């Protein structure tokens, strides 16, 4: 049982559908998608043109699903896709693509390029051409439950720390709670503030919630590497946990792709609609705000701006909530250029941070975010995704820009009225 080109082509034959056929027949080689991709705009290298990243998939589509293409193949006039070529394309399909989806929003003929990259990765992965970093992360997630090897033991340690700090007990495996809270490994490891913020906010809002010992991990590297079968295994843990604990709503934490994996791909991965609701933490907070259950006091006075994680805003549809929330606690909130739906990627999403060799390119791509920040000169940068935070901090550090990065949930929690703390 091992990866092979033959399996790769077979999986792509399953993946290719009418949209992909329509897209490949519509592309007029106008190059506008490159103008929207930070890997091209910051490097100027035409090989990073988004539609070019799909060249092997285009040929497989042409040779398998068009009459003329099949004819040409029979007559030996077509250029078959080789294993070596897929190897060459790994750098284009993974290292230089964070699945941010900006190209899909600018293509004048409407090609959804990121839709195709996501499907092309299915063939790349099973033909053995996924980057080692993500393969290892997926292996660990499938075998140990977390891409970074976080075990329940570590989660309990962090829970105890938060309990001491906030004086609120952290519910675990409580049935019938309104919310089942998920955490991403990055938050468990690097940002304990998130869990303490959740604890305090839920107490303040008077909402019942719980963690789930068998499904605490929100991230899903299966959708980043591009193996739906493994992504299904990973997301099923959350579904079983939520249905076992009869939670009404599952909260996807401050993470980008976790939201896409659970909210949008989840039902399609397991093949049926969810019996529970899925919301990103920002959607929950915004809902509490509008229901008057989340009241904050005091304001941040320094100049804040917000970085929209791609998987949350452009690819997830959560765009306005973060604005409403920031305006609750900030007097000097300014939008960076291209904010919201058209915001630029931090360069680390889609599994790119897990790919060691991709680091140099990532730093290069970060210049786009740098130019946005230079345009708006904030004192602090707020975002809502753990990987965005570390990527932003590493980038800012690299370019000696002294702008602290902080999570939105954390800031909201800091402005809860004191009696709760």
């Amino acid at each position, binding site marked *: 049982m091992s*990866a092979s080109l033959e399996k790769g082509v*077979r*999986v792509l*034959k399953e993946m290719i559908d009418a949209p992909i056929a329509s897209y490949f027949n519509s592309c007029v080689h106008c190059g506008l998608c490159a103008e929207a991709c930070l890997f091209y705009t910051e490097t100027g290298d035409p090989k990073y043109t988004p539609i070019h990243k799909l060249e092997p998939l285009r040929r497989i589509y042409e040779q*398998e699903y*068009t*009459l003329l293409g099949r004819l040409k193949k029979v007559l030996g006039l077509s250029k078959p896709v080789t294993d070596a070529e897929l190897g060459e394309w790994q750098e284009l399909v993974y290292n230089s693509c964070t699945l941010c989806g900006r190209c899909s929003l600018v293509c004048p003929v409407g090609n959804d390029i990121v839709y195709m990259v996501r499907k092309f990765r299915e063939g790349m992965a099973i033909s053995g051409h996924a980057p080692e970093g993500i393969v290892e992360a997926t292996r660990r997630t499938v075998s140990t439950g977390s891409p970074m090897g976080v075990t329940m033991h570590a989660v309990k340690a962090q829970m105890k720390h938060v309990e001491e700090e906030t004086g609120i007990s952290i519910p675990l495996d409580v049935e019938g709670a309104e919310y089942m809270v998920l955490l991403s490994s990055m938050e468990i490891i690097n940002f304990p503030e998130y869990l303490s913020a959740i604890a305090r906010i839920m107490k303040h809002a008077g909402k019942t919630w719980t963690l789930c010992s068998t499904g605490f991990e929100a991230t899903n590297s299966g959708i980043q590497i591009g*193996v739906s*079968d*493994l992504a299904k295994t990973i997301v099923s843990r959350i579904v079983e946990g939520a249905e076992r604990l009869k939670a009404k709503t599952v909260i996807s934490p401050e993470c980008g792709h976790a939201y896409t994996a659970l909210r949008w791909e989840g039902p399609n991965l397991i093949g049926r609609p969810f019996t529970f609701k899925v919301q990103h933490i920002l959607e929950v907070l915004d809902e509490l705000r509008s229901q008057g259950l989340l009241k904050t006091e005091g304001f941040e006075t320094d100049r804040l701006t917000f970085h929209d994680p791609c998987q949350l805003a452009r690819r997830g549809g959560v765009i306005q909530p973060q604005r409403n929330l920031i305006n609750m606690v900030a007097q000097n909130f300014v939008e960076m250029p291209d904010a919201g739906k058209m915001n630029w990627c931090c360069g680390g999403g889609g599994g790119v941070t897990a790919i060691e060799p991709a680091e140099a390119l990532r730093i290069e791509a970060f210049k786009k975010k740098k130019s946005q920040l230079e345009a708006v000169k904030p004192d602090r940068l707020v975002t809502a995704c753990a990987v965005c935070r570390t990527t932003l901090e590493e980038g800012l550090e690299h370019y000696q820009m002294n702008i602290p990065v902080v999570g939105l949930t954390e800031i909201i929690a800091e402005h809860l009225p004191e009696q709760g703390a």
Partner: protein
Amino acid sequence: MHGPLIDSLARQGVNRRTFLKYCASLASMMALPPAAGRAMAEAMAAASTGGQRPSVIWLPFQECTGCTESITRSHSPTIEGMIFDMVSLDYHETLMAAAGHQAEEALHNAMKANAGKYLLIIDGSVATGLDGAYSCIAGQTNLDALKEAAQGAAAIIALGSCAAFGGLPNAKPNPTGAVAVSDIIKDKPVVNIPGCPPIPVVITGVLAHFLTFGSLPELDKLGRPKAFYGETIHDRCYRRPFYDQGKFAKTFDDEGARKGWCLFELGCKGPVTYNACATVKWNDGTSWPVQSGHGCLGCSEPDFWDGGGFYKALSMPANPLKMAGAATVTGAAAGVAISFANRAKKAAAKSAHETTTLADLEKSEER
């Protein structure tokens, strides 16, 4: 009846000055220098003295006598008619008094007498179907008559679109296998004077040129005198400004038609037809088709009968959707066929799908 032409003209009330003016206008129309006009006048005036009037043999084949009609307009004695007095029209079935054997005899005598010098005018297309049996005179097929007459001819004039390009008889389906004169006679200079019928002055112009200079006028690719067929009707049409402004008559009696707008949309073939109607006009300059409100038919162009309809605008194709039905059905069939093939291929790929495991992410001969 014989004697110098100038005398016979005088008897008919045509004085010398009118005759000179006519020759000058004829010369100018044929784009000849003014001096040629005077030379033409002397040559023609003196031509009929003595016995050397040029012999002309007129052979009618598959024709409708329209060309003869056009040339011998006799509602008033025209100069053209007089010109024919000056030539010895030795054979013209319709005009000559003789008939039957006498006519045949006159023809052969003329050919023998003026061998190599006579001018042969062909009227009508030549039937080649059934070895020419479709059209015979006195037991001889037009085909053989043409070949025989052509040997002794100094030059041949294919008069009218039938003789020049095959005309109506050669329009689809061309049952008689009608062809143009120039398709049969390759070794003799052939002047095509197309038109259905051609304009009278064009014929006399060519004749006068031949009589005066003993040679044929400059011809275009299709063997037509450039003097008369050098430009298209459209180039010289008085309605051209309307074309340029996009003002087109939509029907024959709409407001545009009454205002004399361009007849392009009513099928006028002016832009693709080379002839002199727009300048010389018909019936002594009275009018011409477009001036009378009807589009040009393109009668001086080959195969104008099969040009896709006289009333269809030039940009109008004849029947482009002819194959549409068959094409749509075949297209849909091809599409459906490939869709079933694709569906089967996709289903096969799906069924061959074994759930991917972690081991599948690495090649067996692991790096």
